[in-house]
């Protein structure tokens, strides 16, 4: 846990290491045809189930019984989407998922940045112990507390409401750890000291110095949090009702009929996955950067 995050852009464009590199042999083995072939195979392996889900979603359910099975898109997509929206409250589910994921994201990013600022840049008694506790809680399986959490929600009558899904995820140990790592590198101590000399109190320092510097990491944390919240399954399934679900709960309702209507349930998975695919297509590069920066540090 000792190493820290690198600042993405400045480090990459720093001229010094690049100059040192010149005159050396190539840094990494160059990829040959076989490498690309393997990678292409893996890319197809990654993409195929999603493509297949779209194929099934665009077919009539009976078309699946054909030999050979259909491999191209059919013409029934709109009809299936209509059916899916008629079978489960999908519009409601999409709205709910959006509300849940957005609230959790805003809260996690804000509180993680605040706490990360304190842990990375401020000295106070108990700091190391608290940070250790936070890292420790990352290892505790989430399902351990699910029974009492339900009892608690039943007692305060939050079962069946979005509060029950949002509240437990408002803070994230991973988020605090991630922002602590990032901010300890990204904010120069001299800048904070200069601010102090000018009479800034810490909250102003946070607002004017730390927040702007935290923006790249906050964006990455926000995206990871949003995706995790959007995809969360067990707890929403337990605490929400099929009438007022999140997308994942609606999916499980779609898939749970006595006779499995695959063109219907895979239409559901397609609808549920498209918003994430859009986000991933636009910001995937940063998401990958975030995972690669955040995860090695174990």
């Amino acid at each position: 846990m000792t190493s820290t995050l690198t600042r993405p852009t400045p480090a990459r464009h720093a001229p010094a290491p690049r100059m040192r590199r010149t005159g050396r042999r190539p840094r990494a083995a160059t990829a040959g045809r076989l490498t690309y072939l393997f990678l292409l195979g893996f890319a197809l392996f990654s993409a195929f189930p999603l493509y297949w889900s779209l194929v099934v979603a665009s077919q009539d359910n009976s078309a699946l019984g054909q030999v050979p099975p259909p491999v191209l898109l059919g013409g029934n997509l709109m009809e299936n989407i209509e059916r899916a929206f008629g079978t489960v409250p999908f519009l409601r589910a999409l709205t709910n998922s959006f509300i849940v994921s957005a609230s959790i994201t805003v809260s996690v990013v804000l509180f993680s940045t605040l706490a990360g600022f304190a842990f990375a840049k401020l000295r106070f008694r108990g700091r190391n112990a608290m940070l250790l506790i936070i890292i420790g809680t990352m290892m505790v399986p989430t399902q351990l507390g699910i029974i009492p959490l339900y009892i608690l929600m039943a007692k305060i009558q939050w079962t069946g409401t979005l509060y029950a899904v949002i509240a437990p995820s408002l803070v994230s140990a991973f988020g605090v750890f991630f922002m602590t790592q990032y901010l300890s590198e990204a904010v120069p101590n001299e800048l904070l000291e200069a601010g102090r000399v000018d009479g800034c109190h810490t909250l102003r320092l946070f607002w004017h110095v730390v927040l702007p510097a935290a923006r790249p990491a906050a964006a990455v944390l926000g995206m990871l949090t949003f995706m995790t919240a959007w995809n969360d399954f067990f707890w929403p399934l337990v605490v929400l009702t099929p009438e007022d679900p999140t997308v994942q709960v609606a999916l499980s309702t779609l898939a749970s009929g006595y006779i499995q209507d695959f063109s219907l349930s895979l239409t559901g998975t397609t609808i549920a996955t498209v918003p994430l695919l859009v986000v991933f297509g636009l910001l995937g590069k940063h998401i990958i950067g975030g995972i690669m920066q955040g995860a090695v540090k174990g």
Partner: protein
Amino acid sequence: MSRSRLYRLDVHGSPYLYVAPFFVIFAIFGAFPLVYTAWVSLHEWNLLAEEHPFLGLANYTALFADPYFWNALRNTASIWVLSTVPQLVMALGLAHLLNRRLRAPTFWRMSALLPNITSVAAVAIIFGQLFGRDYGLVNWLLGVFGAGKIDWQAGTATSHIAISAMVIWRWTGYNALIYLAAMQAVNKDLYDSAELDGANSFQQLTKITVPAIRPTIIFTVIVSTIGGLQLLAEPLLFGGSSITGGSDRQFQTLSLYLYEVGFTRFDFGYAAASAWVMFGVIVLAAAGNYWLTSRLRRS
């Protein structure tokens, strides 16, 4: 108050204010439920009942005598091995390829991560179709090669393979990116001299890369232990929302059993006990895997 006292209050007091939101919310929705689980597990606790008589350790003794619990434990362990070992080995290989100088590296990395952004529920439903008995694509493919149809859900081994395939598909690329990040920190001179000594790419992977990124490998093993022992959506949706994990419980995992006990029988005391036992299993397995992976280093 004087300016300097205000200043000192700000410097010494404000950090606590900044970390407070985390600890307050975590205390209510994270720490309290954990501790309370232990308390609930010592009682006969039905959600609807007013009284919760104290039972002592009876829930735990009942659990250890419960064949369904042992069945779920076996299934969980089997699915964990079937999914984690191939997944991490494949991730290593993929990372090794991604670590070469590539054209369009971001494209290849994104394609590796694509499965991971798909929700578990979606993955389970899609693979439920792929591994379907009658119209499943896998069975059709087997048919092309002359093999007979397999009823993937019906058998213990076959259902475990199908569920493992979901986990492998969703997590291989993610782990590859984590390995890749670690590999990029390995000193490239090591590879240069290995190449001069005539080591091929595979030897470089096993002799240089794997030893160098061992801490990361241990980390991924631990993380996949914690995650893999909590599988719920995959077996649940594979069986078409069958809470028993198949007609003979052939693919009911520990989490699924916890769900069954807690939220169909509403026997919260018993479910809380199984949650704690599950936690114990995870800690033991994580520690065991840590021990195993660190021993590999020396051999």
